[in-house]
């Protein structure tokens, strides 16, 4: 019984994200003219997955109590890169995929180096690297275009066994291969500890720098997975500034909805995935209610505003006013 309570306590943020998502998705499906068909699920999953990858990337950095404002630009850059490289026969395609992922990791690693060894504040360092990554994306694709191995693209954006959206399988794979190993490793724990209390982590002799570096690098990798998936989804590469900055900003929102603390040390990429899907569903919701699509951004904003205000209820419990100032 008490084990159960502790589990609940650990997963509270993630479960909140899940609850918000389920609520929205249920309302969405209940009002969808077609109901929950494989097709509807596939479309929802594909669109959500794009957000989810970027949100996972953001989670890793936020856990170290940093922030990555270049994550959307890495996403765009890898999209452009993939539209050149992930083409042709299976072998070149595979090599292309690897190259794209490595490129993402390099971008993340650069962020990490600047923050850890350059001792720059994450927020400004990643604004600057974001500009660089976007510039590189523009170099690669001054105009939208390019192509991608369409067989692979269709397979990964389609359905497995005719029911399960492949994108969900991909997301699960990312969780199993990137997030869980990170979370369970010593280095990942150091990243958590550094975000929670750098002083305590240092006193306990944890590898803080390696932990942070791993977090930034893996964030680059996850953003690259998102960029790759975008290429599969659109068949092209496009260096769109609005898309990059939009994904960055929404990744922060998704992370918060998914119960990740912006002060660091607490949260799960799984929660961020739910947060991303919830944010995505808000957008789709209005479609089924036949609301003028013009109202979509406003309602999204209002939902976001309400969601982020809920956390402040905890303030009522603060009894020493000095605790306001963390």
């Amino acid at each position, binding site marked *: 019984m008490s084990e159960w309570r502790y589990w609940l306590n650990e997963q509270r943020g993630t479960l909140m994200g899940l609850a918000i998502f389920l609520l929205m998705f249920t309302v969405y499906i209940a009002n969808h003219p077609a109901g929950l068909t494989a097709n509807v699920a596939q479309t929802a999953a594909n669109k959500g997955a794009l957000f989810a990858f970027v949100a996972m990337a953001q989670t890793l950095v936020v856990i170290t109590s940093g922030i990555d404002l270049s994550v959307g630009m890495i996403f765009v850059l890898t999209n452009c890169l993939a539209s050149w490289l992930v083409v042709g026969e299976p072998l070149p395609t595979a090599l292309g995929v690897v190259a794209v992922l490595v490129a993402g990791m390099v971008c993340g690693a650069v962020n990490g180096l600047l923050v850890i060894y350059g001792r720059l504040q994450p927020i400004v360092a990643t604004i*600057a690297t974001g500009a660089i990554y976007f*510039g590189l994306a523009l170099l690669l694709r001054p105009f939208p275009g390019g192509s991608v191995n369409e067989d692979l693209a269709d397979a990964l954006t389609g359905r497995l066994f005719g029911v399960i959206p492949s994108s969900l399988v991909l997301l699960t794979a990312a969780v199993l291969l990137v997030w869980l190993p990170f979370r369970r490793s010593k280095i990942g724990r150091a990243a958590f500890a550094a975000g929670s209390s750098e002083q305590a982590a240092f006193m306990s002799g944890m590898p803080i720098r390696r932990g942070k570096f791993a977090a930034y690098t893996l964030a680059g990798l996850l953003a690259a997975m998102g960029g790759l998936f975008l290429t599969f989804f659109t068949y092209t590469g496009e260096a769109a500034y609005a898309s990059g900055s939009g994904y960055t900003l929404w990744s922060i929102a998704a992370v918060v909805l998914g119960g990740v603390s912006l002060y660091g040390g607490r949260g799960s990429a799984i929660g961020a995935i739910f947060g991303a899907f919830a944010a995505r569903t808000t957008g789709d919701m209005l479609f089924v209610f036949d609301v003028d699509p013009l*109202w979509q951004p406003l309602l999204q904003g209002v939902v*976001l505003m309400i969601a982020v205000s809920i956390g402040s209820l905890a303030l009522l419990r603060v009894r020493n006013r000095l605790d306001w*100032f963390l």
Partner: protein
Amino acid sequence: MSETSENRISIRARLPAFLRRADPAVLTAFGCILLLLFLSSLYSSNFLSLNYLLQQLKVASFLGVVAAGMMVVILLGHIDLSVPWVMTTGAMMACAAAGFGGAGPIMAIPIGVLCGAAFGLVNGFGVAYLRIPSMIVTLASNVVAQGLMVVYTGGFSPQDSAPPAIRWLATGFVIPGLPNAIIVWAAISAIMVFLFTRTSFGRAVYGIGNSERAAYLSGVDTRRIVMIAFAISGALSAFGGVLLAGYASKAAQAMGDAYLLPAIAAVVLGGTSILGGRGSYLGTVAGVILITLLQSILSVMQMPEAGRQIVYGVVIIVMLLFYGRAPPNR
């Protein structure tokens, strides 16, 4: 620790007074501006012409107004990500008000600015009283502002064009040869300097940025100050949007998108700590000019957008590595 700072003081004591008082970061930023102008003059002497420089200052004034507001918030140790759509809201509301005839054209600018201030108040309330991280509140209010404007315009560029008064403010001349936008920026700058150096509000902002605890225990109503600071940032963002609408002669969707990151970058390049509490307004002016100049020179040299972005990012990083670093851990 105290030894090194004493050392630094003794070196600075030997400098002339105006240099002694200036922040090294501000001097570096102005130094970079001169270096940039020198390098570009090697490419073409046009870069040193008065006309070109005035034109640059005029373009810089829009960013300058926005960055002034951003600086207040950054000095507190917060950030305002709602700039893009608050700018747009200010511009669109001002243009819309002007279309109402009667008192409309007179009230256009105040209405635009007030809309921005209202968004700022919402941000400030969330940050100060609900203690939501500023990054997330301002992000959400940016989306709300965007939503409101999309609903209002129907997703198209609004029909109202900027009224003459706004256009005059942005592009006209009171003093021949000196664009009004520059005068407006200078006036706002004067007010900001006064605010930061001569008022108890300004002192409180710096105090909160350094230690909100200490400021609170000193009996300052820190929550009210934070809320006002965000309102100022919102109002100035909106005013920047109004000016920009005057310059482009109409408001447009997403007109503010290109101003958020440069505004933050300008404040930080001017030596203001992103963690709050430290920085001088002069530095922000330098940062604004530096960024505008950099963008302009790169585009005049016909460097493609891609290269511009890369150079822009690299310059920011290199400058920050020079003086924007946190102290070492141990």
